[in-house]
């Protein structure tokens, strides 16, 4: 009988054998994400004269399985910006929560209750809601996400996403930029992730090749182009869905509709496809 206190209440060694603590010792190196698991496909966005339009379908795939069909991949930030996520959905959720915390903390700073807040605190409460009270704009948010993603890649623990950020910059001009899992950041009048870069980007560039072209597009034009692109993506991207979310960011705020459906599909072209698939002739 073992009377030592550390043996109290434990299975007896002479009956059960000594405790096997090997599972507590992890001799393997720390591992991080090596591949995405549940994924979202393309996100596309185009600038127009008063803002940015962004779209992404509502599908989260588990490999080739269409696993979740009601997934919102466009997230508003402070009702002035939109963030669109492609890639791993759990990393997207992590980022969404993180940005939510960031937004709350930023609001504390703007409020001016903190000791250092004398400058901004004199803001009158009924100043126009669109005006930024020193809030983070889309350009700031994009820079922050870039640093975050680059930092994670440096620690070999990447957030497996490709992200588009839409909104306005400090000069109140429409802003659209991208950042990926390696922290590579860039901007362009139209942007697309994943298959969208191959299928949608050429279409969008027909309408907005340059910033000047984009500044001539109306909101309706931009929405029409984006809808057209979503249709092409649904035709050719096997990991896509005909239900999608559409966000329009203007100086008045963010307008996200999460129940868009692709209208007027025509699959006639599928008949003419030859060279792969099951047909023999």
């Amino acid at each position: 009988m073992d009377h030592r206190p550390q043996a109290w209440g434990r299975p007896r060694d002479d009956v059960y054998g000594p405790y096997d603590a090997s599972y507590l010792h992890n001799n393997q190196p720390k591992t991080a994400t090596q591949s995405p698991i549940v994924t979202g496909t393309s996100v596309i966005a185009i600038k127009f004269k008063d803002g940015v339009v962004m779209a992404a379908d509502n599908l989260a795939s588990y490999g080739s399985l269409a696993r979740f069909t009601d997934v919102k991949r466009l997230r508003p930030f402070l009702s002035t910006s939109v963030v669109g996520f492609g890639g791993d959905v759990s990393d997207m959720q992590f980022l969404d929560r993180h940005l939510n915390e960031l937004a709350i903390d930023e609001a504390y700073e703007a409020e001016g209750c903190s000791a250092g807040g004398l400058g901004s605190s004199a803001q009158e409460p009924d100043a126009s809601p669109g005006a930024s009270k020193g809030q983070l704009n889309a350009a700031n948010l994009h820079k922050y996400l870039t640093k975050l993603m680059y930092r994670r890649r440096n620690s070999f623990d990447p957030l497996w996403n490709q992200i588009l950020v839409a909104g306005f910059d400090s000069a109140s001009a429409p802003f659209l930029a991208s950042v990926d899992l390696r922290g590579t950041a860039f901007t362009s009048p139209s942007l697309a992730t994943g298959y969208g870069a191959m299928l949608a980007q050429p279409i969008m560039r027909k309408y907005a090749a340059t910033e000047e072209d984009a500044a001539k597009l109306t909101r309706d034009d931009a929405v029409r182009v984006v809808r057209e692109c979503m249709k092409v993506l649904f035709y050719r991207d096997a990991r896509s869905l005909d239900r999608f979310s559409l966000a329009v960011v203007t100086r008045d705020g963010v307008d996200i509709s999460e129940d868009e459906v692709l209208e007027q599909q025509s699959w006639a072209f599928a008949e003419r496809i030859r060279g792969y698939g099951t047909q023999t002739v």
Partner: protein
Amino acid sequence: MAAMFSQNPLMNGPNYSVNDAPRIGAPEGAREHRFDPYTDNGGSTLAIAGADFAIMAGDTRLTSGYSINSRFHPKLFKIGGTTADQKDATIVLSVVGFAADGEALKERLDAICKMYRYRHGKPMSVKACAQRLSTILYGKRFFPYYAYAILAGLDEEGKGAVYSYDPVGSYEREQCRAGGAAASLIMPFLDNQVNFKNQYIPNSGEGHALVERERRPLTRREVEILVKDAFDGAVERHIEVGDGLQMMIITKSGIEEVLLPLKKD
């Protein structure tokens, strides 16, 4: 799963499927996925030192495999100015290779130059900045910045200075240097046109007796044309180069920036 996000068709196998999920203690034949922290964003840079000026140039295309991510993504950065628009900067850094590393490298060097100016009350000399950049790069010797950097400015005597680097900090001062995707296309052209390599005075002799053409510093105008020609040539033969040409001309009166169109195909 690099293939899923790579837009390079060469790298693309069949796309991600359940079978590809990593398995622990996998049997033989199992593939292990590893995150590759690097990628090549293409593009090319070029710098030439003149007698009292230096010219830095780079295209503005940002690629990922066969895709063009952006047609305007600058590779040239003014370094060490006191303001956000860097209007009083005296040094230019160009980075080409992996864009995220390039950006990080630029921000670090810029911050260091700003600290130097704050502490010493004068801008950093190109020579000092060049050495510091080497130290930064070597500091990440075992997880390098995948970026080919070129630094340009005017030296203490007012002469154009160009320093070129490899990703881990080896550097030397040169008359001219091309970097990035089309470096191997541009560099021989520069050897011939800037350093007059393989240019001999006609009928000056046979074999070793041939007299080399006398080297002389090029004028600013000549260099600008040379740069444009070099890039036009590179655009023609290299798919990762194109869209726009950004040039920065460093003289004692400041840094002048020129943007020229390149072929967008």
